[in-house]
């Protein structure tokens, strides 16, 4: 049952034998009400409910308020708070250290769409095995509220004037870069955030979560596209989503009871159930995804949910045909060629 979402207070210890505290981080130093905090909380909940062993996760981030948040969850996991916009390259290299580990990266809209655009696009192409969360608030929080590349055209902020550019659409960017799991959510919708986190974590490859996460200090005016108010008014989920852990038959049946339902079977056998579909939306169809994103953009529609998923594609490490032993546990005998090879080599040198 431990994987049952919102199932009241879950049993004190989960199947990994850990309590929720084992998934917590340091107390947050972010502003009260910052969307980023609610996302951190959902990460804690999701990992706890999924019985994840913290030592099997590496946390990553760039620089920003959002990028600080890995300090606020899963203290027992290794973490790397890297450079502004460079989380993708750090994660790509680090995950080769032990390809059995999964990455959870937290970035911001500035960190990803402004300075980080290049690395973001290329980590998508490589299908690195990690959850890539963009805590998207349309501004640079940590430097006090300048426009980021996801700020909507026409947004005006007192110190900044009016933003003249069309926003970068994180999901659209991920999609055309052939990312294999793409979702959008809203920090004001914690249940959905948590279910998407679980599905993303169960995905094999890169899973992008573009989560509108209001900056209450610099960009939370009711008419701002990244505010709580606007989100509440404009969010319309593409579906209700429920994550079902592998072999959780009971729950699966419950869910399959009602109405039009879509199942997505994930790499690890877990199942994502989609209900109340926005006219039959099929997240496995890339063109459909393009259409919905384009439509959402045109109509100021905050379309949340699982936008696209492709469970077929191998993740980066898999394409490298690596030994099963984590590379960072190989020893001299695996790594240093035998003495006789030196003669072979010299012979090749004319």
């Amino acid at each position, binding site marked *: 049952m431990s994987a049952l979402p919102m199932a009241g207070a879950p049993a004190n210890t989960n199947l990994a034998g850990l309590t929720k505290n084992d998934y917590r981080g340091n107390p947050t130093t972010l502003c009260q009400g910052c969307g980023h905090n609610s996302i951190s909380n959902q990460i804690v909940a999701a990992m706890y409910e999924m019985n994840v*062993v*913290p*030592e*099997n996760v*590496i*946390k990553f981030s760039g620089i920003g308020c959002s990028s600080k948040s*890995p*300090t606020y969850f899963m*203290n*027992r*996991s*290794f*973490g*790397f*708070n*890297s*450079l502004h916009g*460079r989380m*993708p*390259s*750090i*994660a*790509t*290299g*680090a*995950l*080769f*250290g*032990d390809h*059995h*580990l999964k990455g959870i990266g937290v970035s911001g809209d500035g960190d990803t769409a402004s300075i980080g655009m*290049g*690395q973001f696009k*290329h980590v998508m192409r490589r299908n690195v095995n990690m959850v890539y969360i963009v805590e998207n608030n349309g501004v640079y929080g940590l430097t006090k509220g300048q426009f980021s590349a996801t700020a909507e055209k026409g947004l005006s902020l007192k110190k900044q004037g009016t933003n003249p550019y069309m926003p970068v659409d994180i999901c659209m960017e991920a999609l055309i870069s052939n990312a294999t799991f793409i979702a959008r959510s809203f920090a004001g919708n914690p249940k959905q955030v948590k279910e998407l986190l679980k599905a993303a974590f169960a995905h094999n490859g890169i899973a992008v979560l573009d989560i509108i996460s209001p900056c209450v200090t610099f960009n939370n005016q009711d008419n701002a596209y990244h505010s709580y108010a606007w989100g509440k008014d404009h969010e319309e989920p593409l579906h209700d989503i429920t994550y079902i852990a592998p072999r959780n038959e009971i729950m699966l049946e419950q869910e399959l009871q009602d109405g039009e339902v879509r199942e997505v079977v994930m790499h690890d056998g877990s199942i994502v159930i989609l209900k109340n579909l926005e006219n039959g939306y099929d997240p496995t169809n890339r063109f459909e995804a393009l259409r919905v994103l384009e439509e959402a953009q045109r109509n100021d529609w905050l379309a949340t949910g699982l936008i696209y998923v492709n469970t077929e594609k191998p993740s980066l490490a898999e394409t*490298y*045909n*690596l*030994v*099963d032993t*984590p*590379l*960072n*546990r*190989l020893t*001299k005998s*695996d*790594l*240093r*060629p035998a*003495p006789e*090879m*030196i003669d*072979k*080599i*010299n012979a090749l*040198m*004319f």
Partner: protein
Amino acid sequence: MNKVVNDFSIIVGTKNGSGSSTANNTILRAIFKMGIPVSGKNLFPSNIQGLPTWYTIRASKDGYLGRREINEIVIAINPDSFTRDLESVAPGGAFFYADHIRLPINRTDIAIYPMPVKELVKNDPNVPADFRDLVGNMVYVGVLAHMIGIDLGNIQAALDFHFKGKQKPISMNMGAVNAGYEWAKTNLEKKDPFYLEPMDKTKGMIMADGNTAAAIGSIFGGAQFVAWYPITPATSLAEAMNDYFPMLRKREDGKHTYAVVQAEDELAAVGMAVGAGWSGLRAMTSTSGPGLSLMTEFVGLAYYAEVPIVIWDIQRIGPSTGLPTRTSQADLRFSTNMGHGDSDTIVLMPGNMNECFDFGWQSFDIAERLQTPVVILSDLDMGMNQWMSKPFEYPKTPMDRGKVLFEKDLDELKGNWGRYLDKDGDGIAYRTFPGNKHPLSSYFTRGTGHDEYARYSEDGGIFHRNMMRLKKKFVTAKQYMPKPVVFKTPGAKVAIIAYGSTESAVNEARDLLAKEQGIKADFLRVRAIPFTQEADEFVRNYDQIFVVEMNRDGHLHQLISWEYPEHVMKLKSVAFGDGMPASAKWIREGILAQYTEPKPAKSVKKATAKKKVAVKKAAPKKSVASKTKTVKSGKKGAK
């Protein structure tokens, strides 16, 4: 006319992309097989096809491998450079040219040999029309072989090697060689004094380029992760790793123990390497100047977060894009201080093929022992040219992974551990790798302020304490650095300090100075920064020390001055950079231009006289001028 044997230079002028490299390498290898010390340098344009390109081959019975500024034998195949090539023949030299080039030849002081290159291949039935230009190059090999005495058997051997034994191309090319050889025999009369005669000076030696040596050495060092982005002259290093990994890391199960990633740029390449180094892999990247500049911010992070990575910088001449296919030693100063704030970098400076190989594996031991970035400064001349060399040696020491804690270690420590805690007092703390299942193994890495337990901190005292530990780490570093190489001459009063690929040219210059000026000079080739104790002692022992390097600003001179303030006044900078490999000529002249005789009286005239010479010979002039301040004050200081 008395014979000149095994001591002259050949230069071949062709068009790039015309496939002449096979021909030139064949000449080089054949001479090598004859037991004659030989070196080849490719002077190519930053272009793919159709521009003039030159290949120089120097046969040197005395074993000098440095560049020579004189070419006795010139082979002109490219109409576009024909006139220039003709002028470049040394008086009394020989000029071979493809006879379809119909341009005036106005020199009478040299031997002239036309070659019916096109003709001969056209008539060869075994050469398909579209291969004629390619194979045509072999004709001049044959002609030259007959005229200076290259043994055809060795040419055969060179071709066997080049074509990995594939008979068809071998015989096709050998056919053209023979055709040229036979034609020359019947049609050309020897009018020049240059001959090759077998020796035994290359027995047991190999031929290699520095990038291949570095790649193989790195694999013997247990390289596990390579992220790179193409850039001349570093590209062939990463590509060589792709070539040799499969053979050197072969396993029954066919699985891989390594990964090579072609990144989207250098920021990503070094970022991936930092990520991999942090997670416990022997991680590296290779690049050249522009790429190194882009890596600046990440190197600062790796220094401060203490992540071991190895960066090969195959230097080309800058600043900026500069001349992508010309060599240099001008990244030295930058590489010791990459990025904002207080920072240090370990810099290794290989000087030959064996060191490219050795530093390939040693660099990982050093980087992991010190948990910091290591930059290895090679250059285009070493990296891309073929050098004769002693065979590579299997690593003499076992791998040193440095201070790493796994589950059992943490059990023993009962978790009494901090990622940045200096338990041993050497400035080096213990690290753990992601995937370690001990509940106390993890830590959070950051480029921001942190305490001994890797906790975020903005406390000034903690920040300062950590920075001083990092400084201590670089004192500890000295004992792990490769020691300098020292060449001595009995009775030497002056000395030369240099680094990298200039070794052979410096030694040649030392011989010239001794022979022609009676100046005996010892020679220290530094191989690492920080400097080691050997350097400390060396610097003490001479009245004049000439720091010789291929750049404009005298980077090594600056670094040594900073390290040895008490000896500054004896240090004289001989720095010059035009993209060409150092020659004994400019080193000698550069030294003479600043040399001050021990005994004043008559010597002064002598010295100035020499200065003039140097000045006339131009090359190092400006760089010398630019340093006269130092020299003057040098005198002042001596008073």
